[in-house]
């Protein structure tokens, strides 16, 4: 399941809805990305711009790849957009599997792909001004590693 929304999410409620009654799940991994303050300044807000329609398409595509590649019982991706405060939650990825290794690997895989394939752009506003966050080479390298393995 995927969702793109402005509203915050409740990790416990999302996990309970996804896995609560099931008895075939041994391992659940949740990743939560949060708005982090700047190392050299005071962030006042981070605004996430996205490409409606394409975002949903890409998230569904990334999720389908994870479901094909790993032995998973359930997955959930929730990604927020709009203006967020420091400390706010940005993204939630839940992977549920019979075994822990598949759950861990699938969650890391989904995050690596989200960083480079989900059409979001981050604008940081701080006491230093406004800056569009630059993509990191490390994120491209992280995705490349999965492609070498496949």
């Amino acid at each position, binding site marked *: 399941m995927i969702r793109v929304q402005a509203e915050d999410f409740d990790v416990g409620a999302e996990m309970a809805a996804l896995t609560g009654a099931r008895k075939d799940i041994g391992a659940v991994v949740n990743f939560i*990305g949060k708005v982090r303050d700047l190392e050299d300044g005071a962030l006042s807000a981070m605004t996430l*711009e*996205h*490409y409606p*329609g*394409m975002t949903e*398409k890409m998230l569904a595509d990334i999720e389908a790849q994870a479901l094909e590649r790993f032995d998973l019982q359930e997955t959930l991706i929730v*990604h927020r957009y709009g203006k967020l405060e420091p400390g706010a939650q*940005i*993204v939630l990825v839940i992977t549920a599997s019979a075994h822990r290794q598949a759950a861990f690997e699938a969650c890391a895989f989904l*995050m690596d792909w*989200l*960083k*480079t*394939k*989900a*059409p*979001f*752009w*981050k*604008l940081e506003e701080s006491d230093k001004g406004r800056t*569009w*966050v*630059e*993509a990191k080479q490390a994120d491209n390298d992280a995705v490349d590693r999965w492609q070498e393995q496949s």
Partner: protein
Amino acid sequence: MNIHYFAWMREQIGKSVETESPPAHIDNIDDLLDWLTNLSPAHAEALADRTIIGVAVNKEFVEPGAKLEDGDEVALFPPITGG
């Protein structure tokens, strides 16, 4: 043809979407980028570094050489920073 811009490209060009009718011989993304670059100084600035421009046609990523058809929805954007 609707062309969408995002992030600082949107800000430099001053709009999030524009409807353009490039001449018929413009049938791929590379040619479209050449043509858009000549539209205005703001376009030229936003599209100056071809190596970083991400392109989507009909909401799918494509390579800069990709063919275009009438009615395609084109999107041009800086490197994405999701997650």
